[in-house]
């Protein structure tokens, strides 16, 4: 499916997510990297060892969701921008996603934004909670976006709203 469309279907992305119980109990990293490509920086990114070590460089990344605390250090390391963090329970009625971002303009805390799904559709409005920088990936950012909870499975990117 995804080889024809370029985005994961709901069945495909659901299989990357942890079960409902884990989703409800705090932030967690989700990796959408279904192909055996020769790439492994993610396995060394996690200080808690939640991303299981690769045997071969073409192995698929696998997260131990129980070890993962959703800190997001892995997000900025992934060259394919394939990792994001989802915190389903953030505030009443709201979830939080942490996504990699390398576009201009870089939004600021408090900015509103459009929420985009995996196929690029605008599915709602979000709020920028935080903009993180990393010493090892100076130009990339990780954005923390507050989103309506009902969008927590579809939200995957943002578009800055020009006001």
């Amino acid at each position, binding site marked *: 499916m995804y080889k024809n469309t370029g985005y994961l279907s709901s069945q495909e992305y659901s299989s990357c997510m942890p079960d409902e119980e884990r989703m409800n109990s705090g932030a967690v990293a989700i990796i959408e990297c279904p*192909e055996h*490509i*020769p*790439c492994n*920086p993610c396995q060394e990114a996690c200080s808690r060892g939640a991303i299981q070590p690769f045997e*071969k460089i*073409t192995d698929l990344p696998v997260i131990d969701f129980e070890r993962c605390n959703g800190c997001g250090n892995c997000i900025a390391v992934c060259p394919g*921008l*394939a990792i994001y963090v989802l915190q389903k329970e953030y505030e009443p009625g709201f979830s939080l996603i942490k996504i990699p971002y390398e576009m201009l303009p870089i939004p600021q805390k408090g900015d509103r934004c459009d929420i985009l799904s*995996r196929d690029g559709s605008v599915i709602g409005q979000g709020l920028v909670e935080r903009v993180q920088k990393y010493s090892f990936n100076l130009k990339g950012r990780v954005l923390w976006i507050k989103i309506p909870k009902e969008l927590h499975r579809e939200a995957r990117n943002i578009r800055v709203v020009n006001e």
Partner: protein
Amino acid sequence: MKQICDVLIVGAGPAGLCAASIFANTDVQVIVLERDPFLGGQLLKQTHMFFGSKEQYAGTRGFEIGTLLKEPILQAKNIRIFTNTVAAGFYPEDGFLLAIENDQELHRIYFKKILLATGASEKALSFENNDLPGIFGAGAVQTLMNMYGVAPGKEVIMVGSGNIGLIVSYQLMQAGISVKCIVEAAPVIGGYFVHAAKVRRLQIPIYTQTTVRKAFGTESLEGVELISLDAHWQEIAGSERYETCDTLCLAVGLSPLSELLSHFQCETQYVPELGGSVALRNQRMQCTHKDVFIAGDVAGIEEASSAMLEGMIAGVSIAEDLGIATPSHKSIKEESTQFLQAMRSGPIGDKIRSGLRKVEDSHV
């Protein structure tokens, strides 16, 4: 001018630079020829983080890798670099390679061993008016945007959904240039899913089984006619549609720049999986002419990480043949060979492995 060296390296992209690094600060006299004014080849245009493993600079942006690779070469006193210098041809009766510096100064270069790391050139696509200004190879779009900060246009249609088509589309969006769509003749997207996912999240549609039939414009491109293809790659009559665009970017594949090989009478073969005509070689990257080695895209279209690894392997092989290889060199070669095999081992590597089987022979 007459120049004498032990090792001549043609091309200072990732393959050539990694090969040169093997000889840095040894007694081997090396000359590196580069037709561009700068070193680094295609790396300098790449703004994205590289894949692979940390030994191949995974997570580092391409243009930063270019800087890292060239520094030790620039510092080494035994390596002379000629930029703006084209390798024009090898004269076997006289035993020198003719190089032209700055379009005017001629050099006759005598050497013992030569590495051809000349890279590749972009393929074009056949359709009416495919020569209009505004129609570029993907590399040209990257050069304009990422090296010189010039926008190639305002509204781009990308042809080809291999890694280059997907990555350059992403880079165009980063530069603030709108990409209307990506068209792909095959039924599936050619490049890595993660690259495709990035551009889909940026609202760029990807139309598979679609190609460009004709371009329109008087002095430069104004629009194109797209057409759908059926399961047998045939145009579906009635499916033509016009799309305006001022820029068409052709990311339809690369072809190895193999011309110099014939001057050495190296055996070559046309291998579609490797992009075109490539030299027969052994696992030491040595051709049928024993003094000629190849590395990088000229050996077969692949990636920058493969180019770097092949450059190391070829460099050490040359060092071995000159009798100066150290144990440290040999372990670099072993590690590089293992990495290369590991990188090519997955399903993504099927095409390369199948192509290499046709030209890699230990008896060469």
